[in-house]
């Protein structure tokens, strides 16, 4: 009974929750339970070392440090239910802090000897406890979320944990380049394969031929079957290593628009993996959606496919995908829908009179949309002569209105703030766009900066990309000359302080519709996005995705270069929380929002969230220091 209670508790508390049931039970046998009344000094700095790891069951403790050589005592941390203390002295042989119960506190004590055994048998436990890296945190968090995935019973393979080698057909038809088409077909029939790999003289894959290629390139094209297979094969072959995660292979197939890839082991051919394999693996593949989208020839056909694509998120979540991968796939699918509508618009309105470039803005630009929210887009077209101006403007007016309406039909709502190309302000020739950016950067006002942020995250999605690069170069040159602009960004960033309360607790909405809720988008996602943007613009980095921006800052001279790992994992974590939250709402038929309830989170999730907030605070403090002359 006492043991059951302890096991129940530990199985909800990291890192113990990652231990197998029998081990947890055995561990519980060695526990004792202590009570520390409020005010008790449990461990004293420079006093006797802890003989136990203490796991707080109820209450909370304060950890303080008296600096060497005197000075005022500083509070290092607060720990509460589910958190531990006593570790450092247990491992380091010296009690460096003072630990006082700030409430009546009950804790489980894990004896030193048992703890040492655990450390040897499960090194991850120490790693977790030491919390040197947020890295492990985020990984375990996503694993945890995956484990308790509410949505579906998951007996099927995991797309995101399986390696492609596990699902690839072990055997495949291999032919040489001069084999005839007929012989190749015979071999495939005999060997019951849907594809044949064509290899070069040294056995390296040079091409691939699939059932559908026979249909399209041989039969339909009237190709003589005595010719060499190299005439009709697809090439080059995209190959992946057998150890690559399935997810990456799917993404590669999406990006290259192919449905077969060769799988290699240390460079040598092992087999072929097809879109079909993934369909079998997970029921419904992102690739299948992408194909559905590609096959549509009318807006009426596209709309339902596009709306249905949202269901893919459920599949991805169930597979335990990393949040940042999920949003990349969503972006990839959304991009395809937008390009398709652009294609229809060009058909509808006639060919564009001058080159143009379609821009995705804001979260769409950063490829960080979770669920389809609203449209954020703009259009740049090439400069035109005075004479042509009215005519060209009229073309793009019709064109962008078609786009807006078409995208609404496909499930992308119109932007309430009218950040859409159909707004004439945001459908301009390149010279006008350059003027906009010049004004924003050289004469910033708080309001203008806030409004312009979405444009600094633009991404060319279709059309003449040189227009977009031209614009990016233009403002990239301006920024170093106007430090006041970055000052404004910094100012905005530090004003959105994380809601961390005194006891290290997270403050929530006190009243209203979202009582006890925390706005994850505003309080957690936005600050991380703003941090990445500020430092990317500061260093003239071209990337727009938050993860890409952070990656580009890694190892550099930026203020946050050393914090890249932690920022990436914090971003990964809050994104995952948000995606999960919204998906649950979607499943329950509720309106989608960004308010999460803290009491619905596990200990680990709460701790990770607090870690993210502490990290944001830390960066904000550094930003304040660096930009202090601009901070109002």
């Amino acid at each position, binding site marked *: 009974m006492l043991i059951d209670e302890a096991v129940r508790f530990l199985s909800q508390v990291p890192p113990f929750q990652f231990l197998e049931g029998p081990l947890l039970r055995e561990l519980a046998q060695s526990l004792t339970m202590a009570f520390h009344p409020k005010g008790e000094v449990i461990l004293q700095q420079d006093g006797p070392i802890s003989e136990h790891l203490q796991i707080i069951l109820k209450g909370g403790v304060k950890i303080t440090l008296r600096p060497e050589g005197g000075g005022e005592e500083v509070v290092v941390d607060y720990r509460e239910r589910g958190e531990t203390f006593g570790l450092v002295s247990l491992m380091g042989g010296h009690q460096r802090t003072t630990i006082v119960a700030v409430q009546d506190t009950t804790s489980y*004590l894990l004896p030193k000897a048992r703890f040492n055994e655990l450390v040897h048998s499960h090194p991850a436990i120490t790693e977790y406890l030491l919390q040197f890296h947020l890295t492990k945190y985020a990984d375990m968090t996503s694993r945890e979320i995956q484990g308790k995935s509410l949505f579906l019973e998951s007996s099927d393979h995991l797309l995101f944990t399986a390696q492609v080698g596990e699902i690839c057909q072990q055997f495949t038809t291999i032919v040489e380049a001069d084999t005839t088409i007929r012989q190749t077909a015979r071999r495939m029939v005999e060997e019951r394969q849907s594809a044949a790999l064509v290899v070069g003289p040294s056995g390296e894959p040079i091409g691939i031929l699939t059932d559908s290629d026979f249909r399209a390139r041989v039969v339909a094209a009237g190709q003589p079957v005595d010719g060499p297979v190299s005439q009709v094969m697809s090439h080059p072959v995209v190959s992946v290593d057998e150890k690559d995660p399935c997810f990456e292979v799917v993404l590669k197939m999406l990006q290259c628009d192919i449905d077969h890839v060769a799988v290699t082991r240390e460079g040598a051919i092992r087999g072929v993996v097809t879109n079909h394999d993934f369909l079998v693996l997970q029921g419904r593949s992102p690739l299948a959606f992408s194909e559905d989208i590609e096959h549509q020839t009318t807006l009426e056909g596209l709309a339902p496919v596009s709306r249905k694509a949202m269901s893919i998120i459920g599949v991805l979540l169930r597979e335990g995908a990393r949040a940042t991968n999920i949003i990349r796939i969503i972006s990839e699918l959304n991009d395809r829908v937008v390009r398709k509508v652009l294609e229809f618009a060009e058909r509808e309105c006639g060919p564009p009179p001058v080159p143009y470039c379609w821009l995705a803005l804001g979260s769409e630009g950063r490829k960080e949309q979770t669920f389809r929210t609203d449209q954020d887009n703009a259009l740049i077209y090439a400069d035109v002569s005075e004479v042509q101006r009215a005519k060209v403007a009229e073309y793009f007016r019709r064109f962008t209105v078609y786009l807006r309406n078409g995208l609404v039909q496909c499930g992308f709502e119109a932007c309430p703030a009218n950040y859409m190309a159909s707004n004439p302000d945001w459908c301009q020739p390149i010279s006008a766009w350059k003027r906009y950016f010049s004004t924003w950067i050289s004469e910033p006002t708080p309001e203008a900066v806030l409004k312009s942020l979405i444009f600094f995250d633009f991404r060319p999605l279709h059309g003449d990309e040189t227009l977009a690069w031209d614009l990016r170069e233009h403002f990239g040159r301006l920024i170093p000359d106007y430090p006041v602009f970055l000052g404004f960004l910094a100012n905005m960033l530090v004003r959105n302080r994380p809601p961390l309360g005194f006891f290290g607790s997270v403050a929530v909405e006190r009243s209203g519709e979202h009582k006890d809720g925390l706005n994850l988008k505003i309080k957690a996602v936005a600050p991380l996005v703003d941090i990445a943007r500020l430092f990317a613009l500061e260093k003239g980095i071209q990337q727009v995705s938050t993860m890409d921006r952070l990656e580009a800052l890694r190892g550099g001279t930026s203020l946050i270069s050393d914090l890249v790992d932690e920022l990436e994992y914090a971003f990964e974590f809050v994104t995952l929380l948000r995606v999960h939250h919204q998906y649950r709402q979607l499943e329950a038929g509720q309106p989608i929002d960004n308010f999460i309830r803290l009491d619905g989170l596990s200990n680990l999730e709460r701790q990770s969230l607090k870690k993210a907030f502490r990290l944001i605070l830390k960066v904000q403090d550094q930003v304040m220091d660096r930009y202090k002359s601009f901070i109002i």
Partner: protein
Amino acid sequence: MGLRAWTRGKLGWGGSGADLPIQELRFTVLDTEWTGLDPRRDDIISIGALHMQGSRIELGNTFQELVKPRAILDGRTVVIHGITPSELETRPTIDEVLASFTDFVAGTVLVGHCLSLDLGFLNRDARRSRRVPFRNAAVDTLSLFGWLRRRSLEHRAFTLELPAPSLFDLAAAFEIPVEESHSAIGDAYVTAQLFQRFLPLLQQAGVGSLSGLRRVGDPRRQLANLAASDGHTHF
């Protein structure tokens, strides 16, 4: 030295031997359940106990036994304990259980809520089985409560209007979680946590060793302590 003599020496039974500080004491916190309240007629049907080393409760070292009673259970007891007669039919007799329980409590101070009742049954059965009665030092949490309340300590639990608080009244007052279904081991666990909360308060009041603990926690003094603290008696 026999077990009895050793126990006596170690635990200061009979007023002799070393007076150990509380943190060095080993405790057995126990609870027993009976077919009824009459020691002449009723039987023990379950014993639950656990060890504490000083103020720490040991999770992995508990004693729980259901006991086959001499007489058939009547319906009343089934309602109270949720134990059915057939459940007890296959259990060991009190004689067998006492043998292992004696080993379990050897060298420890006994702790219980209204402990004299439990000890009354246990020692009656020990005598019937021709065993040595339990002569361990004994501390009653109800006596401790009464004594602490008389010292009017600041804990708000002592201001409650509870003339003769049950274990569960006290558990609620000291915010100790209690499980729905009661069992001897479950109640012993609650008692242990109550005792655990009393220890720092006792320390504060100058009670830090076995002799002090025995003085203020004497099972025979529970009524006296409570009555004195109330200023009037309900008994």
